[in-house]
């Protein structure tokens, strides 16, 4: 089939393609507006920094910074361990989260070569996520000297509880556009598949080629309009014939 044929096929099934794309788009819209629980994200930042105190003078050297950076890898694991999370769950019972839930909703990230690490917590309300992330930061800060025998963690910034954050998973417009597009692509694929699987004669050329018989005529589907009784009109003309004769005179 040449390109024109493909276009004609798509044109013929345009209603189906539009319908599927619209259903996909509307479906995605409805899903994200009515059936998706918004998820909020709050994060706090911690800095890992230990200065060596030599003779009352604070010193900071390169190897110390490197050590701190290396330490962050351990801290990431420590935060997500039960040592911290159990403590968070017991000290802040008003959060109503078990240590397992805390571990699941928490992620720790760090920019490479930096002493700053950020703890991020996802929750169904921003306030709760912020409280949780602050609780984890506080507990971590207080626990790390006990675990590592070194007090080098300071809270850089806490999550603001009153912040008016928007949910991170509610990109309604985007999801509608994506679904619309995906629906469009699927529908076009479906139309081609249907045409490929359709084992019937649809055109004069096809019939002539595959059957080896001449096609004597092609009759289109009868519509109501075709069956309209115009008999009287026709016979009047036959009797009168005036219109055509008059034109010639």
């Amino acid at each position, binding site marked *: 089939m040449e390109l024109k044929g493909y276009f004609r096929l798509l044109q013929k099934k345009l209603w189906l393609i539009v319908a599927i794309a619209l259903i996909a788009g509307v479906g995605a819209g409805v899903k994200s507006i009515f059936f998706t629980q918004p998820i909020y994200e709050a994060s706090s930042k911690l800095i890992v920094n230990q200065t060596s105190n030599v003779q009352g003078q604070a010193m900071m050297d390169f190897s110390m910074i490197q050590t701190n950076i290396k330490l962050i890898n351990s801290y990431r694991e420590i935060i997500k361990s039960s040592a911290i999370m159990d403590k968070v769950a017991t000290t802040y019972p008003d959060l109503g989260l078990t240590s397992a839930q805390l571990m699941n909703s928490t992620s720790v990230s760090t920019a490479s070569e930096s002493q700053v690490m950020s703890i991020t917590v996802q929750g169904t309300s921003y306030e709760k996520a912020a409280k949780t992330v602050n609780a984890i930061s506080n507990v971590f800060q207080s626990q790390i000297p006990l675990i590592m025998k070194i007090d080098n963690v300071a809270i850089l910034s806490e999550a603001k509880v009153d912040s008016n954050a928007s949910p991170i998973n509610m990109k309604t417009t985007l999801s509608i556009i994506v679904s619309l597009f995906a629906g469009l692509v699927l529908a076009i694929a479906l139309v081609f598949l249907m045409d490929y699987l359709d084992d019937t*004669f*649809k055109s004069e050329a096809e019939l002539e080629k595959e059957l080896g*018989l001449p096609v*004597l005529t*092609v009759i*289109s589907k*009868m519509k109501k*309009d075709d069956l309209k009784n*115009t008999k009287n009109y026709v016979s009047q003309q036959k009797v009168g014939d005036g219109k055509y004769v008059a034109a010639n005179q």
Partner: protein
Amino acid sequence: MSRLTNDNNSLVTYFNSKSQISEGYRKLRTNIQFSSIDSHIKKIMVASAEAGEGKTTTISNLAVTYAQEGKKVLLIDADLRNPSLHQVFSVPNHIGLSSVLSNQYSVEEVLRESYIDNLQLFTSGPIPPNPSEMIGSNRMKRLIEKLEDQYDVIMFDTPPVLAVTDALIVSSLCDGVLLVVNSGKVKKELVKKTKAALEHVNARILGAILNNIKNVEVPVGYGEK
């Protein structure tokens, strides 16, 4: 005159002879006439693979176009199992072909005038227990031979080819077979089988008719106004 305002009517060539579909049937008539230069095609039948492909509508409209041309046409309903010609022309069917073949009535008694000039109808009659035997009988052969002299064209409506053997029997009585193909509905394989079955009994297939096609791009309105 109530017949003329029949709602469920497929005789487009009669009721709306200016429509594009009527033009399609006239094209069919012309093509049949031109496909028979050496041998005169007098007895024509329609065949299709399956039921409901439009055999009766096709043959009825073709008969009307022949009649409109001034030919004396006889339209026979050779579908003794599921006849429908009498419905198209709104005529009674308590006697017909089966009554004649079973010797109960004479041809003259069962032939019906249609409301179209030059077009006579031979309905199927009551449904017999042995349609194939009736169609294939010598009596049927003699009947057609006799009728042949009285008409310019004789046309047959038949049952689907793949369902029963009747259509193949009728084809042996005919000069030409028109194969109706319902576009977008009937599987290619079945149409090919039908063609092979007809060729097997040496039927002369004049050509195919692509029926019920959607969205044909045909210039409409030529010659109007």
